């Protein structure tokens, strides 16, 4: 029983990280049709920014950790907004080229991170509470899992509220539905593009700081590791659907944890799940029917 609880909560924590990456991917794809391969780099840069803050100001206080989270999210958002303004925008409506540009950016930035911070993982420290465990139904659950889950839930609520109750949210939702119509009504959708990139980048940067706590290290390949599963989550959930991404993130991560523990091939199970979902519902769990 305690094993199951432990696996479940760990899976939820991993699912939270997947969601933080996949939410941005899904929003960007839904609005612009761009599959963003550089999203992993947003995450990695956010993680390194948070790590630098913690290293310089003393890692074990909560204030510094909170600052690291904010800085990570801000750096991720800035990087993402610059990517949209400088690279993606120039290739408006040319989806393959947009994908290619983000691929190039991902290759170049990962190399740059390796050159700057070295290719080996840097082990990190944080507030003492995060290293400890809490007893849940007899299972010692590492505390950083709760933090990841809480942050992901907050981000989900935040993005949903933003989309539902703000003017920009309205434009983004309308743009996902029918971009040509929004443009025809005289609304500049391009601002919404930059904004969506920034929001996705902020979520990824935040995810980066949390992921480095979850795994216990930062490395230039942190983003790429998570990105592939975030892609799978996005496709399973349905490209462009935020709720779908949340459901699929939990499903994929929990399944992966259980399969890893009992069978040892969790990653394969996830791929099989993807194949199965695409065979039965090619548009994903909550995606619009193609």
């Amino acid at each position, binding site marked *: 029983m305690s094993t199951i609880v432990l696996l479940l909560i760990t899976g939820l924590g991993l699912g939270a990280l997947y969601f933080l990456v996949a939410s941005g991917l899904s929003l960007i794809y839904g609005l612009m049709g761009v599959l963003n391969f550089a999203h992993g780099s947003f995450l990695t840069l956010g993680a390194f920014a948070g790590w630098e803050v913690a290293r310089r100001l003393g890692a074990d206080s909560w204030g510094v950790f909170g600052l690291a989270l904010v800085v990570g999210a801000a750096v991720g958002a800035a990087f993402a907004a610059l990517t949209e303004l400088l690279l993606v925008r120039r290739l408006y409506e040319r989806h393959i080229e947009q*994908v290619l540009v983000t691929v190039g950016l991902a290759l170049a930035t990962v*190399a740059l991170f390796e*050159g700057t911070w070295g290719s080996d993982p840097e082990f990190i420290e944080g507030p003492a509470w995060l290293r400890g465990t809490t007893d849940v139904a007899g299972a010692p659950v590492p505390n950083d899992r709760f933090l990841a889950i809480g942050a992901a839930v907050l981000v989900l609520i935040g993005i949903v509220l933003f989309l539902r109750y703000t003017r920009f949210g309205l434009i983004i939702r309308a743009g996902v539905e029918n971009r040509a119509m929004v443009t025809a009504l005289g609304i500049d959708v391009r601002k919404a593009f930059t904004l969506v990139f920034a929001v996705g980048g902020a979520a990824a940067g935040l995810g980066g700081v949390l992921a480095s706590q979850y795994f216990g290290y930062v490395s230039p390949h942190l983003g790429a590791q998570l990105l592939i599963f975030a892609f799978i989550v996005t496709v399973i959930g349905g490209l462009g659907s935020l709720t779908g991404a949340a459901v699929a993130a939990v499903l994929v991560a929990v399944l992966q944890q259980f399969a890893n523990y009992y069978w040892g091939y969790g990653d394969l199970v996830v791929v099989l799940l993807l194949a199965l979902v*695409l065979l039965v519902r*090619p548009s994903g769990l909550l995606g619009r029917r193609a």
Partner: protein
Amino acid sequence: MTTTPTTQQASSRSDETAPLPADDGARGAARRRWVPLATGLALVVLLACLPLLAISLPGVLPGPTYTPGTLQVLALALLVGALALSYHLLFGVAGLLSFGHALYFAVGVYGLAIVLDRTDLPLLPAACVVLVGGIAVAHVVGAISLRVTGISFAMVTLAFAQAGNVLVRRNPAGATGGEEGLALDTTHVPDVLVGVANTRNLYWLALAVLVVVYAIVLWVERSRAGHVAAATRENEMRVRVVGGRPYLVKLLVFVVAATLATAVGMAYLLLQSGAVPRVTSADFTLTLLVMVVLGGVGSRWGAVVGGVLYTLLDQRLGALAASEAIAGLPSVLRVPLSEPLFILGTLFVLVVLFLPGGIAGAAQRLAHRSGRNRDRQREVARDTIEESA
């Protein structure tokens, strides 16, 4: 299958479309057919003679062309060119953006390594077994992933390749050697293909692989199936309306491209005398994509040039990074310049942004422009003659 209108449209895009003056049209067509063939043959003969010559290209090659080190780099470049060509068949011809092409290459590399390691089969039968295995894997994965199109297709192929990557890294039953990789068991490999002294034989093998892959890709592109595949890339609905069957044709192209990748993978194993998990990674497929786009999407020789150029740059930029000139720079410049992938990635972004059509596109535009200039000169000359008359 009657796909005439779409087919003509689609194939005219990928072929040479420079307009020629009407009077020497027939001669021009014949010349257009023979000049590339003759150039290609001459190039192959030149490449085949390289191990017997002592040509030094300082900065490009590590040493004179007859030395094993240089031949190793050149052979690697040729094999990667062949691999890029197989990816061109998938992406350039059929328009299938796959992120999992490394899987079939890895089937060749790891498959042959495992068969040679675990069985007593000699090289050729072992290669046949691996090839059949590669075809089977490509059929299964292709049949599943081609049920979806566009970005979803890219994702599914990525996921399958990732599954292959995980399998290799997990080292099931000690077959793949995990992160360490697998050394080539040379017991059943002919002696002429083993050892540093025989690098030139491996070089010739790589050249032969490239030529064969080029011939097969050319054949598939010129076949009816190739035309239907190109038409499907342009407009799948229309192909379906005129009675074509896009799914089967796409599957065929997918399997052919995957099989070619498997064959190249086997040659790669012999050349590198070992398999490492890097060849199964998604990054490796992405570098293939980079090569094809760098060379020019839709161009056969562009794909080969992209692959060769990428490999040489990758090898030589590494050497540049370790050189004195870079070590002396301030860290703002030193760090980016000492990462080959940073330079290649940046180059790639610049090509996508500013040089659509890659190297092949730029070459074609250049040729077009000089052709137009010649026409204009001729016109000016004619005017002068008429005026003086």
